[in-house]
């Protein structure tokens, strides 16, 4: 195949995939806020169930990872700051990098591993076991029934998890700050709060919301496109993880660029 044709085909496929993600997202959002009240109540009930497994149960691992990452950022920052004799800036460095970038990103990576893959596996298994067909014969559409609760759970839980991850990251950085950079816990938190402006936290949370949407859409889309046979579930799970990580980073870049160019000088 000539190179131009290959590029063209890849572009069309890529756009079609993004289109499919948009369709699934639109369908889920519509279903979450429309439909008969009773069906809506059911969706919210399932959303709470999903929020427990995607959000609350993710707390330990998200806490630990962001604690470590906060510590790593402090160590790496200290390398450079030590040369400048500016160790007191460690708190600010950790605060900014964690809230703006690594808090949302590391949370997303954890959630992809725990929930994005689970969404793909759940829906994929349902497809293989004819459960999606069973839904259809019961006049129940899969997107409102299966995807809408996951969306609700994720757009609710991602900002919460990220906020917690931000806090744990700062605590991780604080351990180094207190041990090696001459801070007390009081001065460390004070320095953190001084370094942060509202915009840092809000942009991080907006990103986390977008990541949540991407992870759910990709996980569910990969589940629905599972082929025949149990081995296909494994394939779609892997594919959900790889595509989610790629798209989360792409979305991260886009939003970081938007925030950079719209930032007040």
């Amino acid at each position, binding site marked *: 195949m000539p190179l131009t044709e290959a590029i063209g085909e890849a572009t069309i496929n890529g756009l079609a995939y993004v289109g499919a993600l948009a369709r699934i997202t639109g369908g889920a959002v519509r279903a979450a806020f429309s439909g008969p009240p009773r069906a809506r109540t059911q969706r919210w009930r399932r959303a709470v169930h999903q929020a427990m497994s995607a959000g609350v149960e993710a707390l330990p691992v998200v806490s630990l990872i962001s604690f470590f990452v906060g510590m790593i950022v402090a160590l790496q920052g200290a390398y450079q700051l030590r040369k400048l004799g500016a160790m007191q800036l460690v708190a600010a460095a950790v605060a900014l990098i964690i809230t703006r970038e690594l808090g949302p990103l590391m949370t997303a990576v954890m959630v992809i591993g725990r929930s994005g893959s689970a969404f793909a596996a759940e829906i994929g298994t349902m497809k293989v076991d*004819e*459960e999606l*067909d*069973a839904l259809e*014969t*019961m*006049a129940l559409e899969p997107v409102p029934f299966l995807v809408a609760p996951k969306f609700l759970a994720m757009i609710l839980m991602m900002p919460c998890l990220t906020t917690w991850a931000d806090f744990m990251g700062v605590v991780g950085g604080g351990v180094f700050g207190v041990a090696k950079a001459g801070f007390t816990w009081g001065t460390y938190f004070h320095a953190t709060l001084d370094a942060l402006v509202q915009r840092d936290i809000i942009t991080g949370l907006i990103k986390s919301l977008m990541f949540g949407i991407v992870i759910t859409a990709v996980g569910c889309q990969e589940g629905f496109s599972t082929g025949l046979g149990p081995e296909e579930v494994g394939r779609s799970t892997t594919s959900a993880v790889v595509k989610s990580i790629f798209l989360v980073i792409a979305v991260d870049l886009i939003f970081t660029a938007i925030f950079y160019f719209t930032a007040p000088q």
Partner: protein
Amino acid sequence: MAKKPSRNEETPREETGPSISVRNLRVNYGEREILHSISFEVRAGETLVILGGSGSGKSTLLRALAGLAEPKEGEIWIRGKNFAAMPNSERDVLRKKMGMSFQGGALFGSMTVGENVALPLREHTPLDESTIEIVVRLKLDQVGLSGFEDYMPAQLSGGMKKRAAVARALAMDPEILFFDEPSAGLDPIIAAGIDELILKLKAAYAITMVVVTHEMSSAYLIADRMILIDKGNIIASGTPQEMRESQLPRVRQFLDRVPEPEVTGEIDYLQMLTGENAPGRQ
């Protein structure tokens, strides 16, 4: 050669006409045509058994009837309406009057048996929770699963899963029930139990039932009428008695369980796949 099915050209009338009427149905799987111009009718209250070997197209036919496979051509009239030509929203109205029991049960693994049966009621009816609970108990009782409300599907045996799936299919009091291989993968005693359940439902509710199977003993027992599908065509239809007496070679081969002659060469194999001058077919 294959006996052509008789075509009934009469327009189905609402309520009084046949429950299901299929006309010149063609269904493709990708590029390959699985069903070639199939026509038949199922009368209201009748149990029709669709027989056929593996890959004959019988499951595809059932999927098309349930709206899970899109026909390439032809019509499927259900209760006087052309189901195949309807948009999905209208199909859903009819679907609430239809139930389907899948080969593996297709129960939702994350819900209890009771929640599975309650699902269509919760989603489609204004019934309150206490009424739903009663209906669920009633439906499970009908299939012989009283007291299993709180079990998860994974805790049930194969036969029990199928019974639970039937209870779920019955939840909305359907007028039409589809069964995909109800006795597949079950031991003879459990399979006989499922046959008995089908007979019981038939006697109690006069539901129109379409059952896909390759189990002859079960087919003879439950069928009012049967059709035999081979390579995407109906090659015979009639009452169990008529089928037993059929002298068509392909029908006899199926009923008498005569294996296909062994394929020896590539050409034979290709012919067997395409169905043209297939070995064993005269």
